[in-house]
Structures are given as C-alpha cells and as structure tokens.
C-alpha cells in the first residue's frame, strides 16, 4: 500500500510530466533545449547556502534560480547575444559558487536528488507551480509561435517580445525547479529534453507536437514509477524515468524522416 505522501508525489510527477513536455516543446523550437539541463545549476548556490544555514534547500535553490533567470534575461537584452549563451555564462558562475558553498556530503543529493514522499503542503505548492506552467504555455502559445517564426512579424502583430521572453524564461526555470524537487539538478532537465525531442520526431504540426511530447513524458513517468515500484524498489524512480524516455526516443528513430 502507498502512503498519501507517495500518492501525492506520483500525482505531482505526472502533472509535472505534462508541463515538462509543453515547456520542452517550446524550448526545442527556441533551440535552447540543452539549457534546461544547465539552468538547474543556477539553483546550486542557493542550495549550498541552505545546507550551510540549515533551511529548506528548495527554497534557497528557488531564490537563486529566480534571480539567475532575471540576470540571464537582462544580460541577453543588454548584449543581444543568444539566450543560450547567457544561460551558459550564468550557469558556469553559479555552478562554481554552488560547488564551493555546498558541503561535500550534501553535494551528491543536491545534484542527483531523491524521490521522497511529499507533505500535503509541498504537494499543493507543486500543483500550483505546475498548473501555472501549463497555464502560461497555453495562454502564450500563439505569441510564442509567432515570435519563433519571425520576431519582427510578431512585434508587428503587437507581441511584446521582451516581456514574452521573460515569461518563458521564468516558466522554463520554474519547470526545472519543480523537476529538481524529485529528480535532482542533473536529471531535472531530462524530462524537458527527451520527450520533446521524441515528440518532434513524431509530429509535423504544432498541436500534434505538443500532444506527442506530453504523451511521451507522461508515459515515461508512469512506466518509470510502475517499474520502480514493482521490480526495483531500491532504486529512485528519477533515473528510471529518464532511461525509459530515452528508450522512447530510440523507438521514435524507427519512424522514417520525411
């Protein structure tokens, strides 16, 4: 039998999978998919400080990730360089600070995370965050598409590019943060990256693409939890979920490229 805390964890993971599929699809089209893997490291200094002073590491991580995202946005506006490049700079700096700050024995947990039973409060906070992510993507879907297709055409259609970019970056970071909660910094980006890439191979228009990404993401997450529960009780579901989504991607290679 599962405790309520475990059920909360599974429900949140499944909803997160939907959010990760959606955000990943847009990150892929923005050509910043790999950034989801590194942006999580921007949380590390906060996690380190939290370990040092003994408060909730997620809170510390959230704070530096939020500040880091604003910094990335500002830098990109100021320099005119690609978002990806700015994430690279901020990520490398944060990683160094985080590694220096975080006590050695806690570093592994910070990097790889652990799936834990959730308190009702953590569950509710997670649900609100995930629903917010899904809402933002749904609400700004058309604007994002136009800005990807042609920024100047989007601007001429009265899309405010700077603001839109900030919303997307914050959503992107929030997704990675929620992923951090149960997958750890190294794997948090995986559900953003792999299902979207798989979905992109399977679909040729945008609604099919979004749907396929979410489907792959949810299927990998449910299978991952199921297999862990049934066959590998000593494993953390995070890596299993990622391995299964990688297998889905491998299967998608069977589809011929047109």
């Amino acid at each position, binding site marked *: 039998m599962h405790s309520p805390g475990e059920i909360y964890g599974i429900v949140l993971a499944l909803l997160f999978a939907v959010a990760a599929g959606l955000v990943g699809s847009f990150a892929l*089209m923005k050509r910043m998919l790999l950034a989801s893997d590194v942006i999580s490291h921007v949380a590390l200094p906060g996690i380190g400080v939290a370990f040092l002073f003994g408060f909730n590491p997620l809170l510390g991580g959230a704070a530096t990730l939020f500040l880091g995202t604003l910094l990335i946005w500002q830098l990109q506006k100021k320099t005119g360089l690609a978002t990806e490049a700015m994430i690279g700079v901020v990520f490398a700096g944060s990683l160094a600070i985080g590694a220096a700050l975080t006590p050695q024995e806690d570093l592994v947990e910070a990097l790889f995370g652990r799936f834990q039973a959730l308190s009702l409060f953590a569950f509710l906070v997670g649900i609100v965050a995930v629903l917010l992510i899904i809402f933002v993507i749904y609400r700004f879907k058309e604007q994002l598409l*136009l800005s990807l297709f*042609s920024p100047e055409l989007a601007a001429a259609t009265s899309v405010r590019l700077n603001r839109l970019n900030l919303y997307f970056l914050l959503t992107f970071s929030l997704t990675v943060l929620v992923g951090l909660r149960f997958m750890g910094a190294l794997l948090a980006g995986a559900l953003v990256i792999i299902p979207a890439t798989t979905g*992109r191979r399977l679909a*040729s228009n945008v609604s099919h693409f979004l749907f396929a990404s979410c489907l792959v993401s949810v299927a990998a997450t449910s299978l991952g939890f199921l297999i862990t529960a049934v066959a590998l009780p000593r494993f953390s579901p995070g890596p299993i979920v990622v391995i299964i989504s990688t297998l889905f991607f491998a299967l998608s290679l069977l589809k011929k490229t047109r």
Partner: protein
Amino acid sequence: MTTANEASVLSVQRLTVSFGDRTVIADLNFEVMPGQNLAIVGPNGAGKTVLLRALLNLLPYEGVIQWAAGTRLGYVPQSIAADRQLPLFVSDLLGAKAHLLKLPAEKVRETADIVGLAPDLLATRIGVLSGGQFQKVLITFALLGDPNVLLVDEPTASLDELAQEHVYELLEKLRLDRNLTVLLVSHDLSVVYQFATKVLCLSKASPCFGSPREVLTPDTLAKVYSAVPKFYQHVHDHHSADHA
C-alpha cells in the same frame, strides 16, 4: 504631434534612424496618399528595411511618423527572415494571428481565398512550400485583420521570374480591389516602373522622391546607386504591354 496633411495616409518628417553613431536614415521627408503604391528603392545598406521597421514602430527613431487615423498596417517581411524549420502547418501560423486578433476561425479560410492560397495548402507544413506559395502565406498573414496599408519587404527575393510576376500582380490586384495603400521595398526596378505610382529612393548621396517617370531615369539612378543598375529607359515605351 504634427498634424498630417489631411488627405495623406502617412506623413514622414525629418525622420532620422541611427544605430549607435551610425546614421542609417537622415532627415527623410515624404508623404503617401491613399491608394498609392510607393516603391522604396536604393542600394544595399541604404536603410530600406530599416525604414519599414521604423514605420512599424519596431525601432527607435527621431522625427515624426504620422499615420492617418484608422490606419491598420499589414506587414509582409522578407521571407528569409522567417524560420521555416518549425513544425508549423500554414493553418497554425495563420491561426495564431487570428487568435491574437480574436478573429473568427473562418476568417483564415476567407483570407486565404482572397490571396488564392489553395485550401489544401492550409494543412501543409511551411517547410515544404515553394517560395511562391510561402510568399502567398506571408501575404495572407498580413491581410488578416483587414489592413488598409500593406508594408512589403522584398517580396520576390529568391523567387523565379514567373513567381515574381505572380506576386507583384497579386499585390497590385489586392491594392486595386481592396483600395489598399502599398509601401513596397524592391530591388527590381522594371517592376517598380510597372507597378509603382510613386518612388522613394534612399541614398545617402542623393535621396529622391517622385513619380516613376521623374525618378527612374538613368541620370538619377546613377546618382542613387554608385553605378547604373541593369535598367534601361526602353521599358518606358512598352512597359504596359510587357505583362499583359
């Protein structure tokens, strides 16, 4: 704010656009009347696209750009400025604009019809369209929201001659049928000669503004471009018969 000439759709006064300390457009003045087809010509780097972007308020500028009240702008960007690798059907792209403008869904089909975009193309990926088809998609996109002014940037770059002619004739037909004002950036001077009602040449050395007959003379062109481009006055004599 300066009041625009009563009748004009657009009045530009002392327009200056600079990037850092490089001035691209300096002290430009011109007016556009309703229903005109203004061709904007000039050598590379003269600021043609920059002018369009300033007119669309996408760039900071100095001076006055005054559109008549009730002006609705449609913009057809250069097709190379668009990412065609995205997994988008034509209907996704057009639907996105219809959604943002809160237009009913059938508006997309209606507008595609006006442009002559075949219905089956709506369910086609933008990446597999021919250059001419893609240009029609961009024009359809611009026409959503029922603009009365179209700003068109190099609509025929990378099209073969037949497709080029098709696009220009389409734009001309739209202008006449829907009483549009058209501002068109073009490299193709014979086309400009055929379709434009006014010509604006952007050139640091010698900017000019006037009817095609006044402006498109080898003499003026020699000043506008450093060398005379492949354009001869003989088009003058039988241009109307060329594309009958």
